């Protein structure tokens, strides 16, 4: 207890310096947390996947169309519980910045395969009855202040023209890892528009099939079976688990993610330099004090303890405030980026990493001065006073 008091007194002897160091530490630790959260958010789609779903897409590239009749063929494979499909709609709501994912889904089969969507039966029925109806995620509805019954005008990018959709339902999700920002419309509607514009040959095209399976252990066998079915046909497929699919999408931005990761460690290095500087200066100033302690018979280990204790105390307080600051910072960042991230939560792992980073900074900063001070010569140290 005595030691603790001494440490606290020592740490705040030079108030301004300690406060400045802490400010630096708070900034660094919260920035580190924010960056990790950004990377996590990127991977959120991977976390929210189900192991009983496969994704079948064109072997050429993502989004290249497949004929819709493939669904019937896939359904016949043993172990498949259901098949549904979707097309990416794209589109712009007033301005490109108002981005949220808009997808055309097969309304008859989609929700059976995605039980994570919570929608009331009345809203679902209203959606089914309206050709231009859409189901909207709660977060997107909140973002634009939309309610059931409102209409959303979109200008098409992939499907040209001016579209209007009526909100017939708002869904929530059971688990925070799932996406609550989607807008889902009837696939039939966009298919008919393609048929009208480009003729029957261009219609009946699907971007992705989602395949439900009974037994996750058979995922790879069934994937191979599906791809074999369409081998050497006009449109070959590539099937993988939902998780592998999402990872593939994320890995396209790998260079950026790696840069963000690297930068999150740079900020820790910066604060390490600042903190080491503080501790070096502290030690230099107290040279005479440490010499006195030694002259009184305290061991070199005690001096080391004092320096490490002080450094760790500053790191602990700064780190704790930094972790606390991460939450409002993350919230502010999410608002600034127009909610492009579907899921944005500061995870427990991030907080643990933050705490570890703060402790490491505290330890490394005290190392050199502690080593030096433990070795000072008593006579020389005392002479320093005079």
């Amino acid at each position: 207890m005595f030691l603790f008091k001494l440490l606290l007194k020592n740490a705040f002897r030079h108030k301004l310096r300690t406060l400045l160091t802490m400010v630096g530490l708070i900034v660094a630790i919260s920035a580190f947390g924010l960056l990790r959260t950004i990377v996590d958010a990127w991977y959120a789609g991977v976390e929210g996947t189900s192991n009983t779903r496969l994704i079948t897409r064109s072997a050429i590239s993502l989004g290249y169309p497949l004929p819709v009749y493939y669904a019937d063929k896939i359904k016949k494979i043993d172990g498949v519980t259901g098949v549904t499909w979707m097309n990416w709609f794209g589109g712009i709501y007033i301005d490109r910045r108002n981005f949220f994912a808009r997808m055309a889904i097969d309304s008859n089969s989609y929700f059976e395969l995605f039980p994570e969507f919570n929608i009331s039966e009345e809203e679902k029925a209203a959606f089914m009855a309206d050709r231009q109806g859409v189901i909207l995620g709660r977060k997107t509805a909140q973002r634009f202040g939309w309610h059931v019954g409102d209409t959303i005008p979109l200008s098409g990018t992939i499907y040209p023209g001016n579209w209007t959709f009526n909100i017939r339902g708002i869904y929530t999700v059971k688990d925070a890892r799932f996406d609550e920002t989607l807008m889902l419309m009837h696939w039939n509607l966009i298919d008919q528009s393609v048929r009208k514009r480009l003729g029957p040959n261009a219609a009946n095209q699907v971007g992705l099939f989602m395949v439900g399976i009974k037994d996750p252990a058979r995922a790879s066998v069934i994937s191979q079976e599906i791809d074999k079915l369409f081998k050497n046909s006009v449109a070959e497929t590539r099937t993988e688990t939902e998780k592998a699919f999402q990872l593939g999408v994320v890995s396209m931005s790998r260079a950026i993610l790696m840069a963000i990761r690297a930068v999150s460690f740079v900020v820790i290095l910066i604060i390490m330099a600042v903190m080491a500087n503080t501790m070096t200066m502290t030690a230099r100033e107290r040279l005479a004090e440490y010499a006195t302690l030694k002259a009184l018979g305290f061991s070199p280990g005690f001096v080391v303890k004092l320096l490490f204790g002080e450094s760790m105390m500053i790191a602990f307080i700064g780190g704790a405030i930094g972790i606390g600051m991460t939450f409002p910072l993350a919230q502010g960042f999410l608002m600034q980026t127009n909610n492009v991230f579907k899921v944005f939560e500061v995870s427990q792992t991030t907080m643990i990493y933050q705490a570890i980073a703060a402790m490491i900074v505290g330890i490394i900063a005290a190392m050199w001065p502690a080593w030096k001070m433990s070795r000072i010569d008593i006579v020389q140290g005392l002479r320093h006073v005079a």
Partner: protein
Amino acid sequence: MRAIPLSYVMRNLWVRRVTTVLTAGGMSLVVFVFATVLMMSEGIKETMVATGQPDNVIVLRKGSGTEINSAILRAQASNLEALPGIMTDSQGVRQVAREAVVLNNLPKRDSEDTANVTMRGTSLIGLAIRPQVKLVQGRMFRPGTTEIIVGQAVAKGFANVSLGNTLQMAGREWTIVGIFDAKRSGFDSEIWGDNDQVMQSFRRTVYSAIVFKLTNTEAFAPIAKAIADDPQLQLDVKLEQRFYAEQSEGMTKFITLLGLSLSVIFSIGAIVGAMITMFAAVASRIGEIGTLRALGFRREAVLIAFLGEALGLALVGGLLGLAGASVMQTVNISTLNMATFSELAFRFKLTWVVGIETMSFALLMGFLGGFVPAWRAGQLSIIECLRQA
């Protein structure tokens, strides 16, 4: 007013080497991040601007925004080809390329990932109107065959892409007969083949884009008006350079915004570090300050001396950071361009403007960190200083 000699100021940095290195080291890391971000967006801009030719025009379906989303019917293409203002070559052939653009998922060379590569079905004219594209190995593809030529970045970044190899795409074998250098433009990340072959095998019935060369840049306005006035066409017309600049806009904005806000956050740490160092420098040299004042140096001279010391620290940090960043110039990276959903290769590019901006940023950090301590040093009274010493 007599100024305190610069050598005196700079020697102080040397006396407290450890502190100087730690403070300048922290600053240099911030500067490094700041500089690389600017270099990255500069590199992307360079790549995209080099992709477009000043006198080329690209036509897409109205509202499509990218070549992938676009669709142009054959009849529309023929209408376009008849417009006045389009360049003809010595044989009298109109310099119009009808192109189909598709994305193809290919395995990367150095990891198990796959990435989308843009495949452009084009013609000899398509090559002719883009003089920056030069074959460096092999030869041009023969029209009407499944021969392809690939950009340098594709050859470097993707598995099995080398001269003489075949690639399996859309159920067909494509033979690589040439590798081209597109002078660090976006085309370096593309595969080019015969338009009719691409459309057939990828089951496309419509073109993605029509690109043509103007007789001169003044011809653009009338041609754009003619297309806009035709209600049957429903097309967007853009100068190729502007089109590609827009394609990279989202990406550069994202990188710049993220990078600069990070630099600002990080700089707080570095400024705090400089402040701590300078406060300590002032505190430990109180006797010295008193002596200087007693010798006849004025308050301003003392302030400037300490500020100079802080700026010296920043200069060291800035130069170290910039040196580190300049090494990044040798690194080539490629990542997904969200706008086109395909891979884009680019490099970090250090320009004079970036260098000057970076050094100004470093000096600003030094100034912000050093001003308050220097001000305090200037305000100390001679008698108090000397008494403390």
